[in-house]
């Protein structure tokens, strides 16, 4: 790519969306640690006058707790600028007058405090980890199959993720399970869904071509953002720095 043309599009950039895990910090023992220089870089971006927002598919915690964790690492981020699947979903639920049956991590429940969960007319699943028991899945299944129009939302669609004590099944696996049981297709909320990125863009009051996405995940961050008309900048930290074979498996679909 010619240096001249790349400078051209940079001038039209008015906003930046940052992925978090793998870009700002690495996950691991004790909540993780900041990637060297990232906190200062974020401060500079915000100070430059660009509109800055943050994107994550994290659903094992509320935004507040998640941002608190980052503040402890030295980041200066406000909660209202962080976009995760749960608030994006809540926006959709409100627009469509939907009341969810929740199968999510215990620590995510407070995110739904303002949502009416009586007489559910849809099912929401997130990265529920140990809450993915047969009983809980069965309960979610019964709600879904009992609806005249079965509606299933999945917060992300990941196959598995790495933790300190080994690989663990992610939300996508249980989304597929419920899809198969009820013969329906889930609506995925979160990266790489176009609707998710659009929510962020609307909040920024910017057009896609005025925004650049910075991420480590080729398919979910860069691919998803570019399909919306944004430019994607891939960093060589996080998922990128893992072995090629593992990356192929993690990033496929």
């Amino acid at each position, binding site marked *: 790519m010619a240096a001249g043309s790349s400078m051209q599009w940079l001038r039209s950039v008015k906003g930046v969306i940052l992925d978090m895990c793998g870009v700002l910090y690495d996950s691991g023992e004790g909540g993780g640690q900041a990637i060297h220089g990232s906190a200062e870089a974020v401060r500079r971006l915000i100070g430059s006058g660009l509109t800055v927002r943050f994107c994550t598919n994290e659903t094992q915690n509320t935004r507040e707790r998640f941002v608190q964790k980052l503040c402890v690492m030295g980041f200066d981020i406000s909660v209202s600028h962080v976009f995760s699947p749960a608030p994006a979903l809540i926006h959709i639920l409100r627009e469509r007058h939907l009341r969810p049956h929740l199968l999510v991590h215990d620590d995510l429940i407070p995110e739904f405090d303002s949502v009416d969960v009586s007489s559910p007319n849809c099912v929401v699943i997130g990265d529920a980890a140990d809450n993915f028991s*047969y009983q809980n899945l069965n309960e979610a299944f019964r709600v879904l199959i009992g609806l005249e129009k079965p509606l299933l939302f999945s917060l992300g669609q990941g196959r598995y993720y790495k933790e300190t004590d080994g690989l*663990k*099944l992610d939300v996508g*696996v249980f989304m597929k*399970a419920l899809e*198969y*049981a*009820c013969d329906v297709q889930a609506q995925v909320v979160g990266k790489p869904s176009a609707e998710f990125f659009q929510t962020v863009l609307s909040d920024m009051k910017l057009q896609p071509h005025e925004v650049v996405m910075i991420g480590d995940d080729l398919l979910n961050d860069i691919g998803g953002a570019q399909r919306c008309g944004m430019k994607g900048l891939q960093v060589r930290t996080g998922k990128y720095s893992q072995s090629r074979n593992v990356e192929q498996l993690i990033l496929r679909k």
Partner: protein
Amino acid sequence: MFICLFYSFNPVAVMASRRALKAVLIDLSGTLHIEDAAVPGAQEALARLRQAPVTVKFVTNTTKECKRTLFERLRRLNFDLQEQEIFTSLTAARNLLEQRAVRPLLLVEDSALEDFTGLETSDPNAVVIGLAPDHFNYQTLNKAFRLILDGAPLIAIHKARYYKRKDGLALGPGPFVTGLEYATDTQATVVGKPEKGFFLEALRDLNCSPEEAVMIGDDARDDVGGAQNAGMLGILVKTGKYRPGDEGKINPPPHLMCDSFPEAVNHILENLLGSK
């Protein structure tokens, strides 16, 4: 032309082009009984069927119970049968494990383990998924997942989406098998209904081809669809897990639909037996 079309859709005319009926395969849960209650009139209907010149076999995808338990329940409900007339997907799974000489992680109910006696299970290099609500927790699923990722074959007793319990519908093994297939980007080997192999295996010792057999069941896809795909005739009964509209989910549609097992037997005795 019109008369020919009418004739070709007449079920009796269809039978005239088939060989005489030799065997009747009967599903258990949802067809002969629901949990511990027999379908009304089923015992008497079975007795009448046995008076006809056909062999009867009981085929089931039930994964929670071993053959002996199934047999004892049916006897308690006054059904007339022998234990060796029962063919289950557990038996089919065991046969496959022996053929492949692998050591399975058995995700099946404790009560079904009896049908796997004699197989080595330490240091597993294969995963068998049945219906095991007591064992289907996040930790055990992760264990199975890691084995499959390391190369262990995934064997599914069957892929039923759900089944009917007294307290409502409940998830079958299918959803969990599908989830693990997605997680590992592999495909399971399914040994139970509606796989063609299951029906052919059930008929093998009856010296009977699929064209000489009929299947009676409550599951449109697994019982009737599977049997018809193997070359048999299928009769869908509206008991058990049947829900209105199920018949539209298979192609071709069921050869016949009946309210319940006794009506299916009536039809067989009146229409499907040998040449007059």
